[in-house]
């Protein structure tokens, strides 16, 4: 493994340090925070899709669990926001493990179906349990406080999320390069071959799915605190598809690609705001064109073009 894969991380740190001083106003800072939040979720999802070759069509469900844990537990039960966030994340991880264990013994489309079903059930529950969740109208979220210090302004949130993003990228690069990561890549290449050399295929897939659910849940909590309001749309099927789209556009199995995908697709609705109503069409068309002409996604395709014959 060469060290050049980390150059991107150093570049990212520099960009993140400089960004808040060059953005013209808070609108762009807010956009940057949302891009970074999405990037962290997408990196987790990409470990599952890109490295384990499995697709989750219900990831927004885990976001929803995290977000609503952070909204409901402090509001109705007086829990500390951090305890609430961790409880939500553990619940998501547990749910993911429960669902994934029997599913990963099967092959093909089954995880897609199971996660899709799970996501829809979570969303329906959020809409119907109005006495806790406010139903379809959503509910406000209390501010996040750490050690008596309240995180309130966009700028404070920016630094929190930026630090999390750097940690996530660093952690994922290491994970991919670890024996765990090599096993994951092997089983994406050929499940049978990796089984033959002693990789416990099902266990690795469950672990990565649980990890991505945990990370999604934490980021769901953070989004909820950041926005200060949460509604079931946050956990719906379309949001799950958006996240998958980010993975695919940036490039499967590429950590930096995930960031690019998240940045582009978080900015897209702003860019399309003038074409009221056409967002869905644009989204669908981008997905299809990307898969047909660049099945590996933006970053890996471009990287291959610029460094011919120079495999990373």
């Amino acid at each position: 493994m060469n060290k050049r894969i980390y150059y991107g991380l150093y570049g990212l740190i520099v960009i993140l340090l400089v960004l808040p001083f060059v953005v013209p106003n808070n609108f762009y800072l807010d956009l940057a925070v949302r891009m970074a939040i999405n990037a962290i979720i997408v990196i987790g999802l990409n470990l599952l899709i890109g490295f384990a070759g499995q697709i989750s069509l219900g990831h927004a469900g885990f976001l929803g669990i995290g977000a609503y844990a952070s909204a409901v537990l402090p509001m109705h039960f007086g829990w500390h926001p951090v305890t609430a966030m961790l409880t939500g994340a553990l619940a998501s991880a547990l749910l993911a493990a429960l669902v994934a264990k029997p599913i990963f013994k099967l092959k093909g489309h089954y995880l897609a179906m199971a996660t899709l079903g799970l996501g829809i059930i979570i969303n329906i529950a959020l809409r119907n349990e109005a006495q806790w969740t406010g139903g379809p109208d959503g509910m406000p979220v209390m501010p996040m406080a750490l050690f008596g210090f309240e995180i309130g302004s966009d700028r404070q949130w920016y630094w929190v999320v930026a630090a999390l993003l750097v940690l996530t990228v660093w952690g994922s690069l290491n994970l991919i390069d670890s024996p765990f990561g090599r096993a994951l890549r092997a089983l994406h290449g050929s499940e049978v071959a990796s089984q033959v050399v002693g990789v416990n295929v099902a266990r690795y897939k469950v672990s990565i799915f649980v990890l991505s659910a945990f990370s999604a849940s934490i980021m769901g909590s953070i989004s909820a605190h950041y926005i200060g309001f949460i509604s079931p749309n946050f956990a719906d099927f379309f949001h799950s598809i958006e996240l998958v789209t980010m993975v695919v556009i940036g490039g499967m199995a590429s950590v930096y690609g995930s960031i690019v995908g998240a940045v582009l697709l978080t900015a897209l609705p702003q860019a399309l705001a003038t074409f009221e109503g056409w967002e869905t069409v644009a989204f669908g068309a981008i997905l299809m064109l990307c898969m047909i002409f660049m099945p590996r996604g933006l970053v890996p395709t471009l990287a291959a073009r610029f460094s011919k014959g120079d495999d990373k």
Partner: protein
Amino acid sequence: MLAEFLQFLFSGITVGATYALAALGFTLIYNASHVINFAQGEFIMLGGMLAVLFAQMGLPLPAVLLLAILVPAIVGVLVEKLAIEPVKGAETVTLIIITIGASLVIRGLIQVWLGKNTFSLPAFSGDEPIHVLGATLLPQSLWVLGITALVVVALWYFFNRTLQGKAMLATSVNRLAAELVGINTSWVLFMSFAMSAALGALGGILITPITMTSYDVGIMLGLKGFVAAVVGGLGNGLGAVVGGLLVGILEAMGAGYISSAYKDAIPFVLILLILFFMPRGLFGGKSTDRV
């Protein structure tokens, strides 16, 4: 007691017939290409929405039916030619994402074109309910069941008694072998998309007088059709029909006896249970993988 039960049963079978048609659509495409077509629900929506549009133009019912089936079939073929064929042999994840993209494009275009309103279609033969043992049955339900039954019989005949149908079956069993005996497998792919879009659209038209329609009904109807296909064992035609009826009946019973708010969750609970305990579906045989 009995009246209530019958009432739930009637509404369950009626919706279930639509799910069955959608599930047959999934099955056809899956058998021909091993693609799970996540755009299937949009064909159901297209059928209903176009039928409303053509009916408002004042066309007679047979013409409405014909056009509202033909146009989605053409759309289905376009999806296959433009999006599925160029990536032949791609990974499952890629194919799933492409069909999701297609469904977003179709839904988005209809939303831009016809708006976000809910539309209804007049029933084919009046709204005078028929009384059966204290329960009421809409004449439209009889249309739904009758036409679905006809379609199932026609499909059975097509696949078992005609050369084209057998060619399609052969392709689903072994594509390479089918090509070797001279079957035009790209024609089979073409036909399966056209037929499956037409089946979905037909279901959408038939159910619209009862449940109404709007640009976004395709997601739920499609997903439930998909659940029905999996319940019956993916790729199994008879299973798809039984699966559709079963999902419809369970949903109606659940809505009636347990909670109407959680009606839409019932098929998805069912799919999780089936995946855990009977991963090949109710009718799917054992399968082995070749390395």
